[in-house]
C-alpha cells in the first residue's frame, strides 16, 4: 500500500528503481485518490513509464492538455507546445498527474479567484489553501501528488506552502524559464517547486532550472546541491524587525517563528536583528503598481481572435469588449484597470516609473543586508489559513496577506517556506530569504532546520 500522504519523491524514486513498486502502481495511487479538495482542474491518464508523477499548476502550458490559468477566457484552450519546465520535467521522465487550480491568471492569495471554484485546505476544508497556487499546495499536502510545480509572482508558492504545511521555493528571478507559462507580471513571475520536504524541493529545482534559449531573461545557474547537513554552524541569520514585528501578524505565528529562530541558534547559527524599513513600507504598494501594469499588457492578447473564448459582436471592437467582459473575472478586471491607469500618459511617471525606482531601492536594501547575513528569516504569512469567504470582499485585506513575501520578490531574490509548527491546529510557515542565486544556501539552512523542527506534514485530520 502506497501512502501518498507521506511518500516523498526521493523515496518514490528509490522504490521505483528497486522495483518494489511499478510506475503504473505509483501513478494510480495518486490518480485514484478522490479529489475532495478541488485541487485539480484536470486530471491526466498515466502516460506510461516509471518516472515520478508531478502535479502542475494550470498557468503552466502543457501540450495537448487543457491549460486554463483558472480563467473562463481560456476554458477551451489546449496548448500546442510544452512550457520549457514541462519539457525539462518530461526529459527526466516525470509524468503529469493533472493541472491544479489557481487564482485566475495567478492573481490572488486564496485560490478563491479561480473561475472553477475554490480549493480547500487539506487541514481544514472550510479554509483556504492560500494562493494563487492553492491547487498545487493542496495536492501535495492532501496526498494527491508527491510534488508539484507552482508559479510565484508575489508569494504564490511560498504563502500556500505556509498555509498547507509543506516546502515551497520561489527561485531567483531568471533561474527558471518562463517560456510557456501564462504571463501575469513578466518581471516578477517565476516557476518553482512545491514539495513535501527540502530535499525534494531542491531536486525538483535542479530539474527545472537553467538557462533557456527561449527566455532571454534566464541565466546559467550554479549546480544544485542536495542538502545533507543538520548543523547551522557559521550561518549568519538576519531577522528583519519590520517583517517579524509587522502589524497584523498573529501571535501564534510569531511564537512558532521565534521557536524556529531559537532552534537555529542552538544548531550553531548566529542570529541578529536587522532592518528593511523601505522594503516593508513600500513593497506592497510598489508591487500593486508594477504587477498590474505588466498584467494589463500581458492580458491584452486575450481578444477572442486566435484562441480561447470568443463572444461575437458587430465589429472587432465590440467582439473584444464582449469577450473580455465575459471571459475575465473581477480580479483580472480590477488589476487591468489599475495597471492601465498606472501606465497612462500623465500618470506613468508618478506611478509606474516611481514604482520601478522604489524597486531599485528595495533591491539595494536587501543587497546591503546580504553583505552581513547569509539568510533572512520571517513568517511567510502573517496568519494561518483563513476561512473561505473571509476576505473575498476586501481586496486590500487580501493584498496585505502578501506583505512579507512581496519585498524579496520585488528584489528578484529566492525565498523558501518551510513549516515551523502549528498555531490553532494549522501550519505556520517560516520564510528564508537568500541572496541572488543563493538557493543552495537556502536548501542547506532549511534542511537542517527541517530536521530539527521535525514537523509532521500530514494534516492531522488525515493521519
Amino acid at each position, binding site marked *: 500500500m502506497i501512502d501518498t500522504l507521506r511518500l516523498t519523491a526521493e523515496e518514490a524514486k528509490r522504490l521505483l528503481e528497486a522495483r518494489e513498486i511499478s510506475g503504473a502502481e505509483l501513478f494510480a495511487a495518486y490518480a485514484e485518490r478522490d479529489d475532495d479538495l478541488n485541487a485539480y482542474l484536470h486530471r491526466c491518464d498515466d502516460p506510461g513509464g516509471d518516472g515520478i508523477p508531478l502535479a502542475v499548476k494550470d498557468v*503552466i*502550458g502543457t501540450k495537448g492538455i487543457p*491549460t486554463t*490559468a483558472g480563467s473562463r477566457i*481560456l476554458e477551451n*484552450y489546449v*496548448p*500546442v*507546445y510544452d*512550457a520549457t519546465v514541462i519539457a525539462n520535467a518530461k526529459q527526466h521522465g516525470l509524468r503529469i498527474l493533472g493541472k491544479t487550480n489557481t487564482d485566475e491568471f495567478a492573481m490572488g492569495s486564496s485560490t478563491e479567484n479561480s473561475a472553477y471554484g475554490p480549493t480547500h485546505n487539506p487541514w481544514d476544508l472550510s479554509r483556504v489553501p492560500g494562493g494563487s497556487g492553492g491547487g498545487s499546495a493542496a495536492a501535495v499536502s492532501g496526498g494527491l501528488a508527491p510534488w508539484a510545480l507552482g508559479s510565484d509572482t508575489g508569494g504564490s508558492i511560498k504563502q500556500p506552502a505556509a498555509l498547507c504545511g509543506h516546502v515551497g521555493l520561489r527561485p531567483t528571478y531568471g533561474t527558471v524559464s*518562463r*517560456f*510557456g*507559462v*501564462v*504571463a501575469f*507580471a*513578466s*518581471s516578477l513571475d517565476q516557476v518553482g517547486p512545491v514539495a513535501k520536504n527540502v530535499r525534494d524541493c531542491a531536486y525538483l529545482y535542479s530539474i527545472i532550472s537553467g538557462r533557456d*534559449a*527561449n*527566455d*532571454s*531573461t534566464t541565466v546559467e545557474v550554479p549546480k544544485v546541491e542536495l542538502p545533507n547537513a543538520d548543523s547551522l554552524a557559521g550561518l549568519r541569520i538576519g531577522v528583519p524587525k519590520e517583517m517579524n514585528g509587522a502589524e497584523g501578524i498573529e501571535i501564534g505565528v510569531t511564537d512558532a517563528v521565534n521557536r524556529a529562530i531559537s532552534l537555529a541558534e542552538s544548531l550553531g547559527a548566529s542570529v541578529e536583528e536587522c532592518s528593511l524599513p523601505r522594503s516593508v513600507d513600500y513593497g506592497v504598494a510598489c508591487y500593486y503598481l508594477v504587477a498590474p*501594469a*505588466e498584467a*494589463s*499588457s500581458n492580458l*491584452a*492578447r486575450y*481578444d477572442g*481572435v*486566435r*484562441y480561447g473564448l470568443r463572444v461575437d459582436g458587430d465589429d*472587432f*471592437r465590440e467582439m*473584444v469588449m464582449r469577450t473580455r467582459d465575459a471571459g475575465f473575472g473581477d480580479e483580472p478586471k480590477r488589476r487591468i484597470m489599475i495597471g*492601465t491607469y498606472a*501606465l*497612462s*500618459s500623465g500618470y*506613468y511617471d508618478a506611478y*509606474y516609473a516611481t514604482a520601478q525606482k522604489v524597486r531599485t531601492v528595495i533591491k539595494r536594501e536587501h543587497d546591503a543586508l546580504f553583505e552581513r547575513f547569509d539568510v533572512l528569516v520571517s513568517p511567510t504569512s502573517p496568519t494561518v489559513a483563513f476561512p473561505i469567504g473571509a476576505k473575498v470582499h476586501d481586496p486590500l485585506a487580501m493584498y496585505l496577506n502578501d506583505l512579507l513575501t512581496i519585498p524579496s520578490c520585488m528584489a528578484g531574490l529566492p525565498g523558501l517556506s518551510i513549516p515551523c509548527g502549528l498555531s490553532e491546529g494549522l501550519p505556520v510557515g517560516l520564510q528564508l530569504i537568500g541572496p541572488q542565486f543563493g538557493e543552495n544556501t537556502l536548501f542547506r539552512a532549511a534542511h537542517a532546520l527541517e530536521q530539527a523542527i521535525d514537523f509532521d506534514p500530514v494534516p492531522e485530520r488525515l493521519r
Partner: protein
Amino acid sequence: MSWQPVIGLEIHVQLKTETKMFCRCRNGFGGGPNTQTCPVCLAFPGSLPVPNRRAIEETIKLGLALDCTIADRAVFHRKNYFYPDNPKAYQISQYDEPLCSNGKLAVPTAEGEQTIGITRAHLEEDAAKNVHVAASGRLHGATATLVDFNRAGTPLVEIVTEPDIHDAETAKRFLQLLRQTVVELGLSDAELEKGSMRFDVNVSVRPEGSDELRTRTELKNMNSFNFAAKGIEREIARQVRIYEEGGVVEQETLHFDPTQEDSPPMRSKEEAQDYRYFPEPDLVPVHPPEDVVERMREQIGELPGARIRRIADTLSFYDADVLVTGGLDLLWSAVVDAGADPKEAANVLANQFVATGIAPEDVDAAELAKLVAARAEIPRSAFDEALTHAGDPGFTAAPYLGQKVVADASELDPVIERIIEANPGQAEQYRGGKQGLLGFFVGQVMKETGGKADPRVVNERVRAKLG
C-alpha cells in the same frame, strides 16, 4: 505673404533577415496564409520573444551609414493597442532609448547639398496583414476581416527625420537616396510596391522667416516617390490657401489611394492614442559590443550620396543622381573604365538599359562598352536586340557589331521607288499636302530593310522621290 513648407518623414523598411524579429519563423514572401507562424508570432499564452541578432546588427549598420550615434544601451518597449493585426495587443518597438539617434543624411542637389537630420532609427516588429472580405470571399462589400500572420513579427526599421525639409523635390530626393542606401547596405529590398519600404509624410507651412511649427497633417499610403512629391505639393498649396483665407489647418491624416493618384485623399481625425509605452520586461537591454559596431562600420562602402557628388564632377548632377539612385553607377563606372564615353554610357544606361529590367550585376561591362561605342554605327534594331541580351551568360557584342547601317542612296533608292509604286493612293495624298504620310513611307522602308537603313538617309531620299 510668402510661406515656407516644413516637412518631416517617417520611413519603415522591412529587413530581409532569414527569420523574424523575435522568433525563428521564416521571414519572407510566399507560403499560404498563416504558414510562417509559431506560438511566438501568434502570441499564444506563455510565448516569449528572443531578439534576432542579425536584425540588431543590420540596424546598427544603417545607423552608422546615417551618421547616427549608436546607443551603448538600447531598450525595447511595448506599445499597447488593440487591433486584429496586432496579436499580442502590443507591438515590441523602441521608445526613448533607440538603437540609433542623432544622425544626418546629406542629399546632393544641383546647387550643392542639403543635410537632413535623422532624429532616430529604431527596430520594431511588423504587424500581420488584414484582408477584408465579403461572405462571397470578394473584397467588395467587405463583411469580415481575415488575418494572415505571416508578416507578423517580421523586423522593421523605423527612420524618423527632423522637420528639415522645405520642398517636395527634396523630400523625394531624400527618399530615393535613403532607399538606395538601404538597398546597397543589403538590409532590405525596399520595394515600394511590395510594401518593404513605406513612408509617412508630415507637412505644415509657416510664414517665411519664422521658426514656429504650425499644425501638421500626416500623409499616408503614397507608394511612389513621384506620387509623394505631387501629394506634398498639393498639401502645401492647400494649407497656404487655408491660411491666406484666414482659416485654420486642422490636425488630420490624409489617406491616399495608391491605385488612384488623382483622387483626393480620405481624411480622418487623428485620435489621441495613448499607447502606454513601458519597457518590455521579457527582454533585457541591448548593449552593442564595440567590436560588433566596428565590424558593421567596415561593411559600409562608399555611400550613394558621396558617389553622386563624385560622379557629378564628370557628368551633370542630374545624370549622376539618376545613375546612383537607379543603382546603375557601378556598371557605368565599369563600362567607362572599359573605354566607353562617359556621357554616352550614362545615356544608354539611364534610358535604354533600365527599360530592359536586367540586373546591372549580370552584365559584362567590357562587352557593353563595345556596344555603347558602336551605337552610332550599327542599326538601332541590332542595338536594342543586343541590349536585351546584355545580361545573358556569355553575352558578347561581336555578332551585333558586324551589322552595318545602310546609308548608301544607290542601295536604298530602288526600295523606296518600289514602295511608292505599291502605294499610289498615299503618294497622291502626300503630294496633295498630307505631309504626315512621310512617316508611313519611312516606316515601310525601314521594315523592308530589316531596320538596317539609316533613318536620316531614308527620310531625305523619300522626300526627294515624292517631291
